[in-house]
């Protein structure tokens, strides 16, 4: 795992990719920092710099993650990794930590900006809040990197990986406003759940090549959903909005803006990262069997 981490990290800096990406975030954040924090004397770094530049992730993360697995498959170097005495989990983690380390560089620059504010006389509360916000910002980035790594492992084309990650992160970014556009009643929730269930049942049936299993999954799911719809229709609505809430990757970060601290937000980002790393490892392992 360490070997993969080192090679991966170094590869970002043998080419232009690492410096360019780092400069991208540093310049983006630096502009806001200079204009708002320094020129206007606003001490809240979390809100005025980090929160306002978070949209940069939509471009930063796909470019950072697009090559991680797609390039290995294209160059057939995955044969070296997958036939070496390293577990698939080790490979996935090695790559993930390398990308997190690349992402840590602009975060270190941001930390420097916070220290500048401190040096200019910002209060301890503002500085502490800014560092907490930076921590959450970093974990948010790591969760997005895990999503990008997963999407990169699905294809051997870097462009498709980048576009896929961009679409996924953009959808997560826009999810809160999409949520408010459509208010759901229990009937709509039931229909949407049934569509998702049908897709899942079809996937399960195709994957296991068992018609009976697909039908079984669909029937069992329909029974549960139908019972819930009859007895507790409110549950469906709640469950539906809970699912949509979970897809709003950028919302928990807002808990940190404004000098507050939220453990659930940190847990959420760690969970997202762990989930997608697990899916990546499963996907890579599964390809051996195709």
């Amino acid at each position, binding site marked *: 795992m360490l070997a*993969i981490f080192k090679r991966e990290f170094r*590869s970002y800096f*043998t080419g232009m990719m690492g410096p360019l990406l780092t400069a991208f975030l540093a310049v983006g954040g630096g502009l806001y920092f200079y204009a708002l924090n320094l020129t206007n004397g606003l001490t809240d770094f979390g809100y005025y710099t980090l929160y306002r530049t978070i949209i940069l992730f939509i471009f930063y993360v796909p470019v950072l993650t697009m090559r991680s697995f797609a390039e290995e498959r294209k160059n057939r*170097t995955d*044969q*070296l*990794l997958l*036939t070496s005495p390293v577990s698939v989990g080790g490979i996935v983690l090695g790559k993930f930590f390398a990308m997190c380390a690349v992402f840590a560089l602009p975060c270190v620059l941001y930390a420097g900006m916070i220290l500048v504010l401190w040096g200019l006389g910002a209060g301890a509360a503002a500085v502490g809040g800014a560092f907490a916000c930076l921590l959450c910002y970093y974990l948010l980035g790591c969760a997005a990197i895990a999503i990008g790594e997963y999407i990169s492992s699905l294809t051997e084309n870097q462009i498709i990986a980048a576009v896929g990650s961009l679409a996924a992160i953009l959808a997560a970014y826009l999810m809160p406003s999409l949520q408010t556009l459509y208010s759901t009643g229990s009937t709509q929730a039931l229909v949407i759940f049934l569509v998702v269930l049908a897709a899942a049942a079809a996937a399960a049936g195709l994957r296991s090549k068992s018609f009976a299993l697909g039908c079984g999954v669909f029937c069992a799911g329909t029974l549960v959903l139908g019972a819930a719809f009859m007895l507790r229709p409110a549950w469906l609505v709640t469950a539906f909005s809970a699912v949509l809430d979970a897809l709003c990757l950028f919302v928990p970060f807002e808990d940190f803006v404004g000098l507050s601290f939220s453990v659930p937000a940190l847990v959420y980002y760690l969970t997202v990262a762990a989930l997608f790393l697990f899916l990546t490892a499963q996907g890579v392992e599964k390809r051996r*069997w195709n």
Partner: protein
Amino acid sequence: MIEVSHLTKRYGAHLAVDDLTFTVEQGCIYGLLGPNGAGKSTTMNLLTGYISPTAGTITVDGHDILEEPEAARACIGYLPEQPPLYPDMTVEEYLLFAAELKGVRGRAVRRAQAQKAAARTGLADVYGRLIRNLSKGYRQRVGVAQALLGSPKVIILDEPTVGLDPAQVIEMRRLIRELGRTHTVLLSSHILSEVQAVCSQVLILSHGKLAALGAPESLGAALGRQGVVHVTALGEGSRVLATVRGVPGVENAELTSQQNGEASVTAHTAAGADLRAAISGALAAAGCAVLALTAEAADLEDVFLQLTESEAAADEAEPAQAAGAEAAAKQPGAAQADDAQTDSAPGGKGE
């Protein structure tokens, strides 16, 4: 060393490897031979754990490839069909990375192993260069050097001489023979002369099935092919011919040339028999001094075509098990003859 039992790999409806069973013994050089699409690369990818079998088991040095994948893979050095190289690294960086990946502990040990592997594969001149800038032959060598790191017990090379020029091919074969002294080597090829040149055991694959397994020379014998001995002796043609015909085991003989008191005779012998000693002894006893005597190494090409061309042969499914290593050991002639035929090898596919 490697035990393969009822190995099957299915891609959708296509059966790439079909119920393969064989054992790779320690300390031999095995050649996996077959036409394009016979399942050679798939078999190698299965043995190295890159892909998993649909059915069957593979055990490497006692470790099941599915139960203890890391332990099994640690025993294997693998050069895939396309060398798995990172173009943005130098040869040195790449070999150090590969050594670390294979779990070689200690920076100094890794450095020493990488340098040794580079020296063995003739990479010393390009050690500090970017892999991106290397020619195909050098890239192939970097791939082989990578497979040597961590001193694996088994080295698996998928078409190691593809894309090399004739001099490099000879060099690569020398290296493979050298590796065969300390490692078990399994290489694949669709080039007959290559397998005949370096391998002590041959596995012939056809349509994903094992069509034959044995020493290259004994494969011909196992399939009922006659042996051929060319002899040139001092003496009258008819006398030499009669003497050779009189040797027990010689089925047929003909006079091929006769000049300056020398007679050349080609003798066809019973399958699998080595009659060189008997023929030379008989001629000496008859007063005809032997000037030259060569046994024609069993021609793998015939065996290969016979086994792979007809569906019927493949469907027999009974591998022609020939007497193994001892037959190979008896054939010093084959080992000497091989360098002469190395030039026909390169080309082929993959360019």
